[in-house]
């Protein structure tokens, strides 16, 4: 009896958290008149809303922009973050402790303080309306360095010493020897970074005004609040669906990794 009640509440939860997405995706395929209907099934389906979105805004280009930016940022964060993390965990050099403290200090600075001067830096460098402004300021994060350092501390020193005696360089040791052992932390950092980059909208809104360079969430935001969707609910939902679908598909395949990485660091997506 108690168990049944628990299942009922849990199923209501499924409706509350899952149904709106179903409604959104179904709504983007429905004729305008039927979208308000709660029932996701419809008498007829149409691509019309998607056609509207594609003709009004360069959403295909925005998808490629987002993909390029997020992949570049993720690659840089993983490669550079693991190098710094490796140095902090396994190499000996003067000033190591100071750098570690510096990173911890950086992580405590609220981004509100550096947001505007960073934008001005982009203006001075002439990077506004370029990919550089979307990629370079995000190419390293304190969190990724700390996560890599933590993981590398558990790698046995004997392994590294043995490779050194065989004459391996540290680059070789890191990327050929330690990386294959580090899949969990690489996956965690990659997912966190990719999601943060893919979903970020504040920074792109600030540094990009050229429509052909806009990222997907940014373009959809402009489309929604800029009045271009007019009163057509269908094209609004179609734009939101296009933005959500790649992530939902990736999530469907790798949900365990998503949940573990995002919950382990407690970071908002």
């Amino acid at each position, binding site marked *: 009896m108690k168990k049944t009640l628990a299942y009922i509440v849990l199923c209501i939860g499924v409706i509350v958290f899952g149904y709106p997405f179903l409604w959104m995706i179904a709504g983007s395929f429905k004729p305008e008149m039927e979208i308000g209907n709660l029932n996701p099934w419809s008498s007829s389906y149409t691509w019309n809303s998607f056609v509207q979105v594609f003709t009004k805004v360069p959403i295909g280009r925005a998808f490629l922009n987002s993909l390029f930016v997020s992949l570049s940022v993720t690659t840089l964060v993983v490669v550079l973050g693991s190098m710094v993390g490796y140095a902090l965990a396994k190499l000996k050099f003067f000033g190591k402790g100071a750098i570690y403290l510096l990173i911890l200090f950086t992580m405590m600075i609220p981004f*509100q303080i550096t947001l*505007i001067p960073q934008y001005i830096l982009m203006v001075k460098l002439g990077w506004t309306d370029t990919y550089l402004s979307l990629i370079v300021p995000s190419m390293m994060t304190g969190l990724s360095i700390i996560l890599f350092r933590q993981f590398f501390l558990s790698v046995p020193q004997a392994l590294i010493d043995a490779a050194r005696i065989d004459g391996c360089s540290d680059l070789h040791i890191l990327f050929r020897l330690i990386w294959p052992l580090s899949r969990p932390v690489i996956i965690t950092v990659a997912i966190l970074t990719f999601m943060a980059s893919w979903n970020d909208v504040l920074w792109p809104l600030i540094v990009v005004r050229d429509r052909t360079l806009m990222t997907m969430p940014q373009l959809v935001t402009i489309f929604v609040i800029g009045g271009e969707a007019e009163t057509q609910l269908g094209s609004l939902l179609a734009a939101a669906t296009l933005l959500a679908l790649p992530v939902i598909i990736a999530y469907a395949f790798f949900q365990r990794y998503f949940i573990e990485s995002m919950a382990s660091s407690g970071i908002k997506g």
Partner: protein
Amino acid sequence: MKRRNIFSRSDRTGYLFVLPYVLYFCVFVAYPLVFSLVLMFHRWNIVTPMEWIGVRNFVRLAHDPLFFKSLANTAIFLLLHIPLQIAVALGFALLLNAKIKNRGFFRAVYFMPVVVSGVVVTVLWQQLYSYDYGVLNSIITSVGLPRVPWIVDPGVAMPSVAILATWKNVGIYIVLFLVGLQNIPQELYEAAELDGASRSRSFLHVTVPMLNPTIIAIVVLSTIGGFSLFIEPYVLTGGGPMQSTLSAMLYIYNQAFYFSHMGYAATLGIVFALFILAVVLVQRKVIESDTTG
């Protein structure tokens, strides 16, 4: 001799490996920090040269009712959002912690809004909240209650934003609570039962204290996250109606990128950041005195 060689090589590569971070720190952290201190004392619209105005940005801030309103709005948001989030997350986590079939499925569905862009979530809720055609109001009217002015009434709009934000983020906290619950040793419950404790007593005296670290983590994380509240009000209401959902972050954004008041916006950013740090420090103090005392 050989050993020394290895160490000195290690020294050099160490510097090479951290060099990118040091450069990054200088350009994208240290320089903006220093420059924001300079900006504080200037009026600047980015186009014309900077103009030194002394402490006038601070005087202006002290007399800016909208900034204080945006701070108060952000505080109201946090006070609604955090307790709601903890209650909902703990409720679902307790249900999932029982021997439930398909736990993974439920958890995955509840987590879905976390991975999806805030823009998508806000567009969705904009439709749910619509006064005349929204799903929520059609459910409410179907049971004979009056329509709720979710995002058109200044008194209701911020609670609506808090509900939206809770819906978006609660999945993370369900998972965190679930981990916390599973780390509570079963013997504690057995001992409580032997002592004749009722279920509600063992919840209050075993579960809640054991979950304390989780609750602290959630409060701290969602405070920091909540202070950056931006895209939800930006898309949902534009900060309205009557500035009731104007968050501090949105106000700073408007000052900088709508009015081009760079100096003033930088000043607001610094003061807001200090405010955030102060709140987080006070939270930490309270937590420490709570757990040690």
